[in-house]
């Protein structure tokens, strides 16, 4: 028994290499309005010429998870094929009054709140099927939130590779350094998904982290 364990320990990396997946399923997670779908659209547009879904200023625009398979990313000779899941924003409180401030009628706001709640649960359930996570945070917001800390803690507990994306660096009050300081144990890539700023660094980090 001891011999088998020793062999497994010594040659485990060979087994891993032999049985490695040729595709990685990556989830894009984060709080509402962090720019998850904007990032998914940017990645798809750059590598497939397609888009993932509609974006909006109203929180919880994405209320169902969307999967796009076979997105091949090649950077500096390294390549990785990803199945990308764009997930609804994770939140602890959803209140239809917030949507009414954007001009939605009460019925529609309530329906949106219900769908957004279902979306949060669906997003979390997707974690069981993933090989890695891109966690999108808004650089203009305080990163020490219950949502961010809970997501990072749970991804760590599942041993999933994590890459934090500090989005919206095109905005004047953005501070990606604050995100890096909050989660120093994980790589953080500052980008603007909307403007495409520093997006090449993100692709490089994706290829390194998930290949």
């Amino acid at each position, binding site marked *: 028994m001891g011999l088998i364990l020793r062999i497994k320990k010594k040659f485990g990396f060979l087994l891993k290499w032999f049985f490695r997946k040729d595709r990685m399923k990556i989830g894009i997670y984060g709080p509402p309005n962090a720019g998850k779908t904007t990032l998914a659209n940017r990645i798809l547009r750059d590598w497939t010429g397609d888009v993932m879904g509609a974006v909006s200023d109203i929180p919880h625009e994405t209320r169902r998870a969307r999967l796009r398979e076979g997105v091949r990313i090649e950077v500096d000779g390294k390549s990785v094929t990803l199945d990308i899941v764009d997930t609804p924003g*994770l*939140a*602890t*409180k*959803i*209140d*239809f*009054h917030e949507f009414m401030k954007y001009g939605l009628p*009460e019925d529609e*706001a*309530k329906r949106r*709140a*219900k769908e957004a*709640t279902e979306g*949060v*649960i669906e997003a*979390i359930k997707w*974690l069981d099927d993933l090989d890695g996570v891109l966690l999108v945070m808004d650089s203009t917001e305080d990163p020490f939130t*219950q*949502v961010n800390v*809970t*997501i990072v803690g*749970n991804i760590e507990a599942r041993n999933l590779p994590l890459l934090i994306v500090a989005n919206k660096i095109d905005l004047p009050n953005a501070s990606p350094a604050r995100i890096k300081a909050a989660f120093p144990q994980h790589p953080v890539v500052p980008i603007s998904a909307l403007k495409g700023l520093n997006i090449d660094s993100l692709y490089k980090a994706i290829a390194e982290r998930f290949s």
Partner: protein
Amino acid sequence: MPHRCTKCGREYADGDMRILQGCECGNNKFLYVPKEEKRRERKEEEVKESETSFSETPLGIESVRILSPGMYEINLEKVFSRDEIVIALREDGRYVIHLPSLLKRRRK
């Protein structure tokens, strides 16, 4: 502060010189507000606030708490750590267990 200006609503304490000189808004009519009425007003405000804001009681076993149609609290920790979904209704002690999520787990 039992003296309320009938024009701008500003309140002055008993014996305030402004009651004799007139309110800052120029009005010189004041309504005496008995303490009892004031307490009732505050209570009404508190009730209104508790209806519109989220509940202060910490989440327990439930994954989702439905406060009213369109207002939800999600216990992320519970949704992350358990497969089954337990929904709590606004009234304490009433829960709904989402059977499909529970049965799915059993099948694994």
